[in-house]
């Protein structure tokens, strides 16, 4: 079967290069000519930092000022996990015991405990220094990926408790929203005295949920599609 091109392929390439160059030049001119703007939003965010319960401004923005966006993001993660789980469940569970101890396993034996401790530290220190839930969850996901590459049977995704773990971030956030509604009569308005504890509560469960979701994304490509 022969495919017929309606136009010349070379002309299309030259057209694409020309148009993208024009777009780039216009973007650069726009970046250079931008007016100096006083950032009222940043001043507001940094001035009210004590009322948020944390002292790291990025964590305050993520989980207090723009908590609704993070809530939506947890829901998006749950959708991605639901979309990717069938690829992992299709694989027949075969006993993969390596004959001798592989080198990846010896690396994992050194790095996994250290990474778990570092992940816990990043989660805790996220309220005052750079860190937080996403960084800690990425470390934990790296641990799981390393163990999966060493042929260690880590997570069986057909169990109910793993599905509960995947949705725990969203559930914790919903619980915080409902409980804070009863206290302040507003949608995601955290009282300054409890805000730090509530943020840590949400971040704790979100770490596990995001790390298992990221590991699931890797596992579906590594073990699936046979």
């Amino acid at each position: 079967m022969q495919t017929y091109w309606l136009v010349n392929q070379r002309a299309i390439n030259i057209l694409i290069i020309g148009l993208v160059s024009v777009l780039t030049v216009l973007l650069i001119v726009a970046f250079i000519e931008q007016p100096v703007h006083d950032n009222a939003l940043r001043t507001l965010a940094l001035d009210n930092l004590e009322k948020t319960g944390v002292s790291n401004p990025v964590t305050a923005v993520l989980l207090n000022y723009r908590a609704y966006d993070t809530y939506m993001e947890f829901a998006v993660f749950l959708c991605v996990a639901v979309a990717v789980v069938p690829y992992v469940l299709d694989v027949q569970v075969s006993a993969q015991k390596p004959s001798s101890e592989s080198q990846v396993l010896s690396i994992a034996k050194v790095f996994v405990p250290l990474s778990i401790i570092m992940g816990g530290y990043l989660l805790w220190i996220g309220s005052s220094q750079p860190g937080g839930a996403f960084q800690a969850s990425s470390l934990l996901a790296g641990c799981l990926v390393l163990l999966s590459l060493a042929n260690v049977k880590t997570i069986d995704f057909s169990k109910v408790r793993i599905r509960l773990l995947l949705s725990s971030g969203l559930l914790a956030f919903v619980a915080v929203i409902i409980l804070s509604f009863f206290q302040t009569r507003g949608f995601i308005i955290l009282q300054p005295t409890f805000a730090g504890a509530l943020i840590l509560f949400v971040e704790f469960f979100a770490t596990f949920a995001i790390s298992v979701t990221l590991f699931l994304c890797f596992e579906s490509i590594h073990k699936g599609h046979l």
Partner: protein
Amino acid sequence: MIMLTQSILFSICAAILLAIGLMGFLLTSDFLRKLLALNVIGMAIFMVLIAAASADPNAIDPIPHAMVLTGIVVAAAGTALGLNLASKIARFARSIQNENSTQQNKTVGSEKVRSEKHTPDGKGK
């Protein structure tokens, strides 16, 4: 000519990175490179956001940092979905190719059987 601050330098770099990613996406036919190009475009957009956040040298603007943090993780999840799609397409194409090759073998085999049946009749007649 222009006052070259750190913010403007990284904004220009981000614009050229966007151009590289966009041209790479449109001019390559390999699927894996298209996914790489999408990720490069994503990194360029994150660079625009953070370069705009660091315009003031005294205070950091935390709101674009939060947006980029969300964006990085969602881009990784999106890449995972795209790679799953690529593997599924490759498996489907491989099964179609297997079907075509077995069908060709069957037609070749039946032609051989038909020609063997004809020759005894032709010789007899």
